């Protein structure tokens, strides 16, 4: 399975994402922000970092990159797309996912090994988890506070579209402890914590991140 990883100016975690894809058994493919070309990939990871310096709003300028002209319709057509941290912010700015990410409530960049509950194990990026599983992966951001209006939050809860929730304390003020969400179809998932950093023994708090990538490979195999 070919899984593309987009590099924007200011992306930081694109290489870790490619490594995670490789360790999960996929073939990582470099995608470039300036090329309106998905190179025939089966799925895409939008990685973490500070695209375009995070100027204006996180993800706001990346949303209009040439590669997004291809990614948005592909995602709307059902291609599995995972947005991690800055990638989550980009997917929200692109309106592929609801809500927005604003500055952490406590005004600090926060880095920790974060415990999450998998609230929806049926998405393209979580089907290799048990429903309700508790996982620990790295979290590191300054603008990770997930916000949306009450109606949207109720819809997300009602439709099972809250995919991950923070456990043992809310690290950034995210409404209803939401760490990650999915679209109606379950093919687009975004979260603030970083599964790609937790895929190999000896690096990070666990290898819980690997299942994100094996999930996508499984989802693609079952299409």
């Amino acid at each position, binding site marked *: 399975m070919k899984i593309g990883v987009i590099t924007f100016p200011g992306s930081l975690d694109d290489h870790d994402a490619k490594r995670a894809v490789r360790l999960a058994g996929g073939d990582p493919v470099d995608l470039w922000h300036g090329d309106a070309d998905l190179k025939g990939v089966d799925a895409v990871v939008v990685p973490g970092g500070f695209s375009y310096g995070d100027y*204006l*709003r996180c993800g*706001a300028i990346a949303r*209009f990159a040439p590669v997004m002209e291809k990614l948005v319709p592909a995602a709307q057509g059902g291609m599995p797309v995972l947005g991690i941290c800055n990638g989550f912010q980009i997917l*929200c*700015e692109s309106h592929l996912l*609801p*809500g*927005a990410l*604003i*500055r*952490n*409530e*406590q*005004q600090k960049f926060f880095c920790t090994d974060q415990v999450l509950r998998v609230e929806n194990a049926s998405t393209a990026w979580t089907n290799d988890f048990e429903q309700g599983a508790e996982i620990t992966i790295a979290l590191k951001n300054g603008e990770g*506070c997930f*916000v*949306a*209006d*009450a109606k949207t939050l109720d819809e997300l809860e009602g439709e099972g579209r809250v995919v991950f929730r923070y456990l043992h304390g809310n690290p950034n*003020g995210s409404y209803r402890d939401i760490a990650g969400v999915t679209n109606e179809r379950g093919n687009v998932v975004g979260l603030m914590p970083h599964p790609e950093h937790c895929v190999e023994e000896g690096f990070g708090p666990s290898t819980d991140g690997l299942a994100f990538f094996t999930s996508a490979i499984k989802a693609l195999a079952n299409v």
Partner: protein
Amino acid sequence: MGHVVVDVMLKSEILDPQGQAVAGALPRLGFEQFTDVRQGKRFVLEVEGDVTEAHLAAARDAAGKLLSNPVIEDVVSVHDLADEDAR
């Protein structure tokens, strides 16, 4: 040349940690009378010649597409900077 001003504010129901930090600092300087602070963004867009209605319409379009995120922010004003100076 003219200048179009676009003012953007976070929606009232959205948490404003930056505004909260400012609100916390004011009383320490003796400004006890301000009960809350909301922090916004101001963009000043330069155009050739005087600002026309077409410039303002384009600025409103840009404000909705790029300068603000309608999920969390409201465009509270799009106007000619010269109108401010005249006040």
